[in-house]
């Protein structure tokens, strides 16, 4: 009987082929699951980012709407103030024109500026001076002019001149 002096090689279940196969399996499955995990993570972050951006967008839209309302209101204030200032300036010019209209020979004692007219009280040396120097320009401005005279003790005439603009024209101006 022949005997070997070399010790018997230990046999392993993990042969080289099996190790290669397991490595291949592991790498393949790892790649698959990592790709899947990557996709899941990215999809989650996309949804999260989208929701955050949508919320930010609605905030920005709300801010824009609020600012638009404020802009509109400031423009309303500006328009109203300009209207008021213009009316004051026109009023100043109108009063200036009124006093310029009165000739030196006629003295005013009272003037009432109404929304649609003008009432003047004063003294004139005679009717002709009044008619030519005051009533004529008043007639060119107002639609209806009425005058009445009362004699004074010194021979002059006290007059009341009532002048009106028709309502249609005032409505057009407004």
């Amino acid at each position: 009987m022949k005997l070997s002096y070399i010790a018997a090689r230990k046999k392993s279940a993990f042969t080289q082929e099996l190790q290669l196969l397991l490595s291949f399996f592991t790498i393949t499955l790892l790649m698959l699951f990592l790709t899947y995990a990557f996709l899941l993570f990215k999809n989650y972050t996309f949804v999260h980012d989208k929701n955050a951006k949508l919320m930010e967008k609605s905030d920005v839209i709300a801010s824009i709407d609020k600012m638009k309302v404020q802009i509109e209101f400031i423009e309303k204030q500006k328009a109203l103030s300009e209207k008021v200032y213009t009316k004051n300036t026109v009023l100043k010019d109108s009063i200036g024109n009124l006093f310029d209209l009165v000739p030196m020979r006629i003295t005013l004692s009272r003037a009432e500026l109404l929304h649609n007219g003008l009432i003047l009280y004063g003294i004139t040396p005679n009717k002709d001076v009044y008619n030519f120097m005051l009533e004529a320009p008043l007639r060119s401005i107002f639609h209806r002019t009425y005058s009445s005279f009362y004699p004074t003790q010194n021979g002059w005439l006290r007059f009341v001149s009532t002048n009106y603009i028709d309502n249609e024209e005032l409505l057009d101006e407004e």
Partner: protein
Amino acid sequence: MKSNISRQHIYLISASLVLFIFVLIFSFIVLIPEGKEYRIKRVDLKKVSKELREYKSFYEDTHNTYKDLQSKNRRIITAFDGVFNPYRFEKQHKQYFSALSVSELKLSSSDKDFAIYEVNTTSEINSPTSFYDFLDAVNKSDWIIGINFPINFKRDGELIKSSFTMKVYCNNKETNTSASESEAK
């Protein structure tokens, strides 16, 4: 006929086939739909991001317009927001009159945006020029004031007695405080 393939090799080939089938099934059932969803969501996010950028740019433009308008009309905004004070008004404008008296403020009308108050004024002036100067000064005062009809002038010796109504325009505080809020900011 005896096959050359060992039993071990048959196991290996079988295991490889199982893996191959698993990879195919997993890819088609899970991975590819998830990938499609990934693409859709990425495009969706890009679209939302683009929209947000556009809105932000529009917000910047609107904000600049608003700030510009606010700085150009600061005096008017403050004037509308201010409460009319008859004593301060008298103090500021008495230089144009020999005597000036302002009545208490009275609500005339109000709408959604503005409230209009009326003030009756009686005064004495030396000449009409003083009244013109007063009208100029009213346009630069701390409030938005419109001089309203009827205006009466009556000679009284060397002076002219005048009486008129002023309309003071204010923000309607009950319905609109946006301008004042923005001013505070």
